[in-house]
């Protein structure tokens, strides 16, 4: 519960910081500190409980922290902190309803599959956050609302670079999860009686979508704002597989 409280408070403070034109507000700094505390608590929580929702929350939190350091896009926390809070809340309900995945009790092969899938999902969520920031900045620049931009808002090329990076990392993890899932199904490691058809279909659809984004960007030279829009659609496909198909899979979305 500490992690949930930390991310809820961080959400409020970082969203306020995002709206503010000044970057050095105390509230924003406290928001970052709470985000860091929440990340550590969620990691411990995930390792102890193994609930897939908490795992996803922890992975997304770490992805956000990595994006701060690698691409200097701190403001993405204003998007991911509320999403993490929602995921943690959803984890409470799924656990209560018996849908929580007992990650810690799974076989190592399943653990690997679940971990790669969750990492892929977390980077897809991160890409969605970066896309929103990119499209917001694009809109403000196109409509020349320069006064509305926070002073330390990332530059548009920084957001574009961070978006491309997260899409690539997410795609690699999604690919690994699909490959590992297929391999373990062939080896008979998936529990008997599991209905895999909808899950696999959606996973392949999501994978194809992200592949299309990367091909269109890399080969056909799609401009960053189109890539941003496509990654938003990718996020919704992913979200449906997480929230929609979770009820069909006995071990959760993974």
């Amino acid at each position, binding site marked *: 519960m500490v992690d949930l409280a930390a991310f809820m408070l961080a959400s409020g403070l970082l969203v306020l910081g995002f709206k503010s034109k000044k970057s050095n507000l105390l509230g924003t700094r406290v928001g970052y500190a709470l985000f860091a505390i929440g990340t550590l608590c969620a990691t411990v929580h995930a390792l102890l409980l193994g609930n897939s929702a908490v795992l996803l929350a922890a992975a997304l939190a770490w992805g956000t922290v990595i994006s701060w350091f690698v691409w*200097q896009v701190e403001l993405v926390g204003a998007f991911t902190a509320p999403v993490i809070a929602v995921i943690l809340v959803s984890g409470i309900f799924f656990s209560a309803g018996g849908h929580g995945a007992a990650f810690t009790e799974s076989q190592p092969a399943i653990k690997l599959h679940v971990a790669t899938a969750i990492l892929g999902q977390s980077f897809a969520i991160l890409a969605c956050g970066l896309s929103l920031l990119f499209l917001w*900045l*694009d809109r403000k*620049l*196109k409509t*020349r609302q*320069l*006064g509305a*931009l926070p002073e330390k*808002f*990332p*530059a*548009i*090329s*920084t957001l*574009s670079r961070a978006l491309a990076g997260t899409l690539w990392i997410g795609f690699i993890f999604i690919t690994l999860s699909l490959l590992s899932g297929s391999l373990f199904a062939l080896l008979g490691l998936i529990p008997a009686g599991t209905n895999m058809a909808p899950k696999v279909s959606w996973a392949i659809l999501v994978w194809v979508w992200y592949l299309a984004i990367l091909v269109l*960007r890399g080969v056909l*030279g*799609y*401009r*960053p*704002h*189109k890539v941003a829009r496509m990654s938003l659609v990718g996020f919704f496909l992913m979200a449906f597989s997480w929230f929609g198909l979770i009820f069909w899979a006995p071990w959760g979305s993974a």
Partner: protein
Amino acid sequence: MRELNHALSASKSRGPTFFCVGSNHRTAGISTRESFYLTPVEINQALQDASQRFKLDELAILSTCNRCEIFGVADGPEKLTPEYLYSMYRHVHMSARDQKAFTSESLSQSLYILTGLDAVRHTFQVAASLDSLVPGETQITGQFKDAINLAKNAGTLGSMLIRLSQEALGTAKKIRSNTEIGRHRVSIAHAAIDLARRASEDLASLKFLILGAGEMARVAAEYASSHRPKELIIANRTSSRAFELCQHLGYGESHGLENLQNLIARADVVITATTAASFIIRQQDIANAAKGRGDGPLFLIDIALPRNIEPEISNIDDVYLFDIDDLRDVVESHIEKRRESLAAAADIVSSSVTNFEQWLYSKDFSPIMSATSQYFMDLCKREAEKTLAKDIFSELSQRQHEAINAMLEAISSKMTSDVAQTLKKLPESEARQLADALETIYKRD
């Protein structure tokens, strides 16, 4: 500043008194300021004439497009009446240009008069650009230095004005370092380059194309080159002028406007500042240039009037177009941010004025403190010689002699220091009474 007109603040000190008489953008309209403006040659002549006629050893004139001020040091506050200072102001301008329009009545409408610490404070504010039309602009500090140099060349710069100018420039530097007053750029050309930070935070990673070689283009190119961008291309209809600008910068490459599409294809940021009467960059140019570009954004910043870039270009994906009106809003917001820093800057000025006041104070008392110190030293030395010559001290070693002399010197220094501290702590009138008493007792020569 208008409320300062005729605000002749009575200085209590009897010694040298600073004064300032002048006009600025708040007290005088542009036509009046034009008539007050003096060139360096005129200032040189005016300083020499005025210092002789008004018997002033220290005098300087600061003349810019926004102000013309005479500041100097008088023997005491008594003669610094408005009539005297208006007369000086009129004389300075008449001797320089033979102008006859400066009646006392017309001058009283436009001039402000400040004396004593008010004049000191005002000088600090002017040098630090707190009194400027755009607070924090750096030009005035350079103009202030020029004014001091002109006074030096004219032979009207003395120790008091030297100290005043040193303190004023030191205060200006402190304000620039410790507040945000100079942080936000307020010229359109600077704002155009700063806007490129929305394309990439690191300007050194960007490729700039600047079209034009006039004043705006020059300022933009100078500011851009100070960041050592990846590429700086300057293109102008007359390519020789672009070449000259590159040579002046010692950076970048020059071109004509013939291969504009190729140049745009190489750039991340295009700044247009030409005097062309019609658009020189059209939608088709950007569409063609886009084929040769990577996937990075293209910033087009049009600071020319009439505009150089077709407005419809902003419909192209990942191309961001801004014109002079967009930048004007940015500049206005920067000026507002500078104004927000004025309170912090005013605190620094107050602190500097206090320090300067203490320096003036100690300077006033330094002759009597010197005499007092000398008296105590002589007294100790004399009494030591007399006492140590007695027989009972004949067996003292050299080291013991030195130790006793050192002790007496320390007593003398401590007594002098106590007197100095007392003088500093007392109100000025009481301090002066004590100084008079010390002078009577100790300054015998």
